[in-house]
C-alpha cells in the first residue's frame, strides 16, 4: 500500500525528473548493446524470405465458429499480426478483436507443451498414445464417449471414423453459448437451420435479443452488412434498427430504439405485433389471425411492459417499411418457452413477407460429410447423464471445457470421476484438463492443418483452409488432426497407412476432389498451392430452399414470480469472452467491455432504481444467490437493463486455465437453475431467478469510462445526466 506521506503529486514529480534523466542518458551510449543478443542466420534461405520484411499467409480463424478468413503476417519465421482475408465472403478483409487475439493464444505462456498424466508426469507421445490404446482394450463402444465443441471439415470425418472403429455412437457436441434453439426453430419455420440474413436489404430490423454486432453467430459479417444497412446501399435509405432486449448489448446500444420488454415476453410482443399488423390492414392467413387474436395491444402492453403507443408505432414502422427483417437471438431464446419465442419471431417474419427477401436460402457446401455438426447444451446434458449413470469408462474431450461451463446442478465434475480414464486434448490446462488422467497437448491454430466449414455461410460457399503460419513453438505438441489420425491408426492401421500425418491425409482428400473444387485440369501440386495461397476453396453452391408457409404458434402462460428470488439473472455473452475459453488471453481481458468498459473482472449489472431500492452503489461487492448457487462480484449501476433483472457476464471465474484467467472474476455458469427449453432440451440460461445482497465490502470499479457528468482535465466536455436520470428506452 502507498502510505499517505507519499502522495500522487510527489510521485509524479519524482517520476518526471527520473524520466527526464533517463531520457537524457538514453541519448548516450548506454542503450546500444554489444554481444548480448544472438542473430541467427538461415542455413538455407527461401527466395521470398527477407529478414525484416513480412510474408503473408492465408488461413482460417479458429477463435470462434464464424470461421473468418485470416491473413497472417510472418516475419523471420514468426507470426506477428493477423488481418482479415479480403477474399473470404464471411468477413471480407475484416477481423474482430477476438480474432486478433489468436496470436496471443499461440504465444500464450501457459500452453501445455508435453503429453502428461493427471499427476503432471511428462510422457513421450508413444507412451501417451500407448496408454490410450491400453485403456481402450476390453472396453466396449458404448463405454467410450467423446465430447467436442462444434466440429466441421476433415477433423469431423476423422473423428466419425474413429468412433465407428471403436463401435461407439457417443460423440457429444457441446457449445455453452450456442444459438441452438434458433437452429431448431429455423428448421421448423423455414426448413433450414441457418438461413442467410440480408441485413443490408432490410429497411427496418427488429432484433429480439440478437447481439449480431457483438457475439451472435457471425458478428464480423453482420457488422459489415449493418454498415450497408445504415448507409442505405441496398435498401434505398438509412435503415432503422429496433432492439428488444432486457439487457442492453452492443447491438442495443447502436439501435435507434432500445426496448427493454419484460424478460421472456418477446414471443408475446411478436404475436402482439402480428395482431396489430392485421388490424392495420396487412393480410394475414386466417388461421394465424385467429391464433393471435388474444394478443390485443392492451394485453401485450401489460405483459411486456412496453407501452401501447410504442407497440402501435413499431407495427406502423414494420408495415410501412418493407422488406423488413426480424431476428430472434439469445436474449429471446434462453427460456423454458424459448422455442416458442423464436417461433413467434419467425412467424412475424413470414407474415411480413420477409422470407425470400431478407431471409434467404443459404449457400451450402456440397459436401455434406464436411458440414459442421453444431451442438448446444443438450449435448452436454446427454454426456452428463451418461456419466452420472456410470456408463462411460473412457472419456475424451476436445474443444470443450465442461467442468468450467456446466452448471453446478449437473454435478459434472463429480460425475466425471466415475469415468475410469479421461483424456483431454487441450492447449492449456483448463478445469477439464486438470481432472484428466491424460492430457494430450494441442498445437495452436497458427501451427496446425485443418479444414473448416462455417455454419453460417455468407455469399459463396467455401471450405476454409487452416494452415500453419509458423513452425511449432514447442516440439511436443500435435494438432488435433494428427492425434486423431494416430488414434484411428491404432484401430484401423491398414486403412490409414498411406497417410504419414494429418497433412498428408488432408492434402490427399482435398486434391482428390479437385475436379469439383475448380481445379479440373490442374496438376495436384498446382491445385494445392492455389488452395494454400488463397486460404480457402470455393466449392460452388448446393441448392437449398426455404419454406414460406406459416403455422400458428402458441405461447405458455407467464410464469409466476418467486418472492424469495425477485430478480431475474440475465447472463451476458461478452463479445470477447464468449463462453470463457479465451479468458487466458490478456488482450481480451484488457479490452474493455463495450458497454460497461470494465476490464479484468466480472460485474453485476443493475438498474439505478433497483440499486437504490437495495441501497447498493457502484463498486459494492454484492452476492447474487439463486436456488442453485451464488457468486460475489462488484456492482455496476447501468440504466441499460430492465429494473427487474441483473446481468453478469459469462467467461470469467476460472479456477484453472493459467495465470491470466485463474482467480479473475466469478463464474456465472455455476449458479444457473435447472430449467430447460421444453422443445430442444437446451439449458434455458435466462430462467435463473436470484436475490442480491450486499456483503459490506466495496471496491473501485476498474473501467475506462469516466465519471458521470463528463469532465476531462477539469473542463466540462459535455453536459451529461447522472446515470440514474437517464431513461434509455425513451432515448432515440
Amino acid at each position, binding site marked *: 500500500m502507498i502510505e499517505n*506521506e507519499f502522495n500522487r503529486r*510527489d510521485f509524479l514529480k519524482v517520476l518526471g*525528473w527520473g524520466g527526464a534523466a533517463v531520457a537524457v542518458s538514453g*541519448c548516450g551510449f548506454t542503450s546500444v548493446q554489444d554481444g548480448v543478443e*544472438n*542473430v541467427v*542466420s538461415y542455413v538455407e534461405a527461401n527466395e521470398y524470405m527477407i529478414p525484416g520484411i513480412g510474408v503473408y499467409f492465408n488461413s482460417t480463424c479458429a477463435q470462434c465458429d464464424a470461421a473468418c478468413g485470416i491473413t497472417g503476417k510472418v516475419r523471420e519465421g514468426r507470426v506477428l499480426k493477423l488481418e482479415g482475408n479480403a477474399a473470404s465472403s464471411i468477413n471480407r478483409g475484416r477481423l474482430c478483436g477476438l480474432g486478433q487475439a489468436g496470436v496471443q493464444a499461440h504465444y500464450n505462456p501457459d500452453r501445455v507443451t508435453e503429453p502428461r498424466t493427471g499427476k503432471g508426469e511428462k510422457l513421450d507421445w508413444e507412451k501417451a498414445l500407448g496408454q490410450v490404446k491400453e485403456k481402450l482394450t476390453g472396453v466396449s463402444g458404448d463405454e467410450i464417449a467423446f465430447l467436442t465443441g462444434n466440429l466441421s471439415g476433415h477433423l469431423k470425418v476423422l473423428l466419425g471414423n474413429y468412433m465407428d472403429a471403436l463401435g461407439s455412437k457417443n460423440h457429444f457436441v457441446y457449445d455453452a453459448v450456442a444459438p441452438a434453439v434458433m437452429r431448431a426453430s429455423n428448421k421448423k419455420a423455414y426448413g433450414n437451420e441457418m438461413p442467410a440474413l440480408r441485413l443490408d436489404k432490410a429497411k427496418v430490423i427488429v432484433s429480439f435479443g440478437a447481439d449480431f454486432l457483438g457475439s451472435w453467430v457471425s458478428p464480423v459479417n453482420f457488422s459489415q452488412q449493418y454498415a450497408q444497412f445504415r448507409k442505405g446501399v441496398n435498401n434505398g435509405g438509412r435503415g432503422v434498427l429496433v432492439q428488444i432486449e432486457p439487457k442492453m448489448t452492443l447491438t442495443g446500444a447502436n439501435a435507434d430504439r432500445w426496448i427493454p420488454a419484460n424478460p421472456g415476453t418477446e414471443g408475446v410482443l411478436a404475436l402482439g405485433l402480428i395482431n396489430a399488423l392485421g388490424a392495420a390492414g396487412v393480410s394475414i392467413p386466417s388461421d394465424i389471425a385467429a391464433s393471435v387474436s388474444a394478443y390485443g395491444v392492451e394485453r401485450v402492453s401489460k405483459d411486456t411492459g412496453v407501452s401501447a403507443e410504442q407497440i402501435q408505432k413499431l407495427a406502423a414502422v414494420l408495415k410501412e417499411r418493407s422488406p423488413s427483417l426480424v431476428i430472434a437471438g439469445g436474449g429471446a431464446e434462453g427460456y423454458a418457452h424459448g422455442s416458442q419465442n423464436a417461433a413467434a419471431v419467425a412467424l412475424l417474419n413470414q407474415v411480413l413477407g420477409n422470407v425470400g427477401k431478407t431471409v434467404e436460402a443459404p449457400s451450402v457446401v456440397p459436401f455434406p460429410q464436411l458440414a459442421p455438426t453444431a451442438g448446444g447444451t443438450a449435448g452436454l446434458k446427454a454426456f452428463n447423464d451418461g456419466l452420472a449413470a456410470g456408463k462411460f469408462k473412457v472419456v475424451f474431450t476436445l474443444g470443450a471445457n465442461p467442468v468450467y461451463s456446466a452448471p453446478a446442478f449437473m454435478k459434472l465434475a463429480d460425475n466425471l470421476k466415475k469415468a475410469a480414464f479421461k483424456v483431454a486434448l487441450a492447449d492449456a490446462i483448463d478445469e477439464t484438463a486438470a481432472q484428466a488422467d491424460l492430457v494430450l497437448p494441442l498445437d495452436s491454430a497458427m501451427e496446425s492443418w485443418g479444414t473448416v466449414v462455417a455454419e453460417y455461410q455468407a455469399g459463396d460457399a467455401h471450405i476454409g483452409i487452416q494452415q500453419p503460419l509458423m513452425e511449432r513453438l514447442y516440439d511436443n505438441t500435435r494438432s488435433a488432426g494428427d492425434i486423431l489420425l494416430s488414434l484411428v491408426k491404432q484401430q484401423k492401421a491398414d486403412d490409414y497407412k498411406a497417410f504419414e500425418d494429418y497433412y498428408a491425409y488432408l492434402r490427399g482428400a482435398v486434391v482428390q476432389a479437385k475436379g469439383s473444387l475448380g481445379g479440373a485440369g490442374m496438376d495436384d501440386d498446382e491445385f494445392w498451392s492455389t488452395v494454400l495461397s488463397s486460404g480457402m476453396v470455393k466449392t460452388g453452391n448446393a441448392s437449398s430452399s426455404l419454406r414460406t408457409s406459416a403455422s400458428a404458434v402458441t405461447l405458455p402462460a407467464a410464469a409466476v414470480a418467486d418472492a424469495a428470488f425477485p430478480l431475474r439473472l440475465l447472463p451476458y455473452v461478452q463479445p470477447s469472452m464468449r463462453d470463457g475459453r479465451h479468458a487466458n488471453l490478456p488482450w481480451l481481458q484488457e479490452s474493455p467491455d463495450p458497454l460497461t468498459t470494465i476490464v479484468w473482472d466480472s460485474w453485476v449489472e443493475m438498474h439505478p432504481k433497483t440499486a437504490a431500492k437495495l441501497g447498493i452503489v457502484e463498486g459494492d461487492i454484492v452476492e447474487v444467490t439463486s436456488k442453485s448457487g451464488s457468486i460475489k462480484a462488484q456492482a455496476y449501476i447501468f440504466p441499460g437493463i430492465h429494473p427487474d433483472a441483473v446481468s453478469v457476464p459469462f467467461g470469467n471465474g476460472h479456477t484453472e486455465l493459467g495465470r491470466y484467467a485463474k482467480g479473475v472474476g466469478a463464474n456465472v455458469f455455476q449458479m444457473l437453475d435447472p430449467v430447460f427449453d421444453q422443445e430442444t432440451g437446451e439449458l434455458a440460461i435466462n430462467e435463473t431467478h436470484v436475490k442480491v445482497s450486499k456483503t459490506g465490502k466495496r471496491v473501485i470499479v476498474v473501467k475506462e469510462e469516466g465519471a458521470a457528468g463528463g469532465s476531462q482535465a477539469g473542463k466540462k466536455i459535455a453536459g451529461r445526466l447522472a446515470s440514474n436520470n437517464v431513461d434509455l428506452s425513451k432515448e432515440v
Partner: protein
Amino acid sequence: MRHFLRLSILLIGLFSGSSSFAADTLPPVNTADDLGPQVDQPIEFPHNRHAKDMGINCMYCHTYARRAPVAGIPPLQKCMGCHNGIESVKDKPRIKELFKHWDEKKPIAWKKVHDLPDYVRFNHERHVKRFIVQQDKPVQEVCGYCHGDVKEGTVARRQKPLSMGWCVSCHEKAHPTDKTAQATAQGPNDCWQCHK
C-alpha cells in the same frame, strides 16, 4: 524522508544526464573507430580477407541491406556457395567449423554487435538507396559511415556510437540529392522517422 528521496533522485538524474550529454557532444562523424568492445563470435569471421583481399562487395553477402530494413547475416548457403569450391582453405579450422555447421544443417548463432534499442527503427534500404543508388558513392565508403572501415577489421565490432545524437549530427548536414544535382537536402529530422 520524502525530500531526501526526491533530491537524491534528482541529483542522480542530473548527473547521469549531464555526463552522457557530454559524451554526446563529441564531433560525431570524426569519432574514432573501434568504439565497441571485442565480442567473441562462434567463428572468427575475417572481414578484411573478404572485403579487402578479395574485394567482395559488402552487399554480395549482406544482400538484404538494399531491400529490407535490416542488412541481415548471410545464410550459410551463401558461404558454401564459394567455399565449396575453394580447396586451398578447406582444412583451416574456421572453414572446418563452417562445413560442420553446414553438414549438420545447424545455423550459426552470431552475437549481435549493432543492437539498437527496440524503439529505434533504422532502415538500411533507405540509406543504401540514397547514397549508393542515387549519389553513386562507393559501397564500402557508404557502409563505412556507420560500420567503420570494415575492410581493415577482422571480427565485426561496433565502430561508431550509434547514439541518437550521432545519427542526428549526420541528418543535420546537407547532402546532394543525387550524383549530378547541385541541390542539397538534409536527412529527415522528424521524431517519427525513427521512433514509430
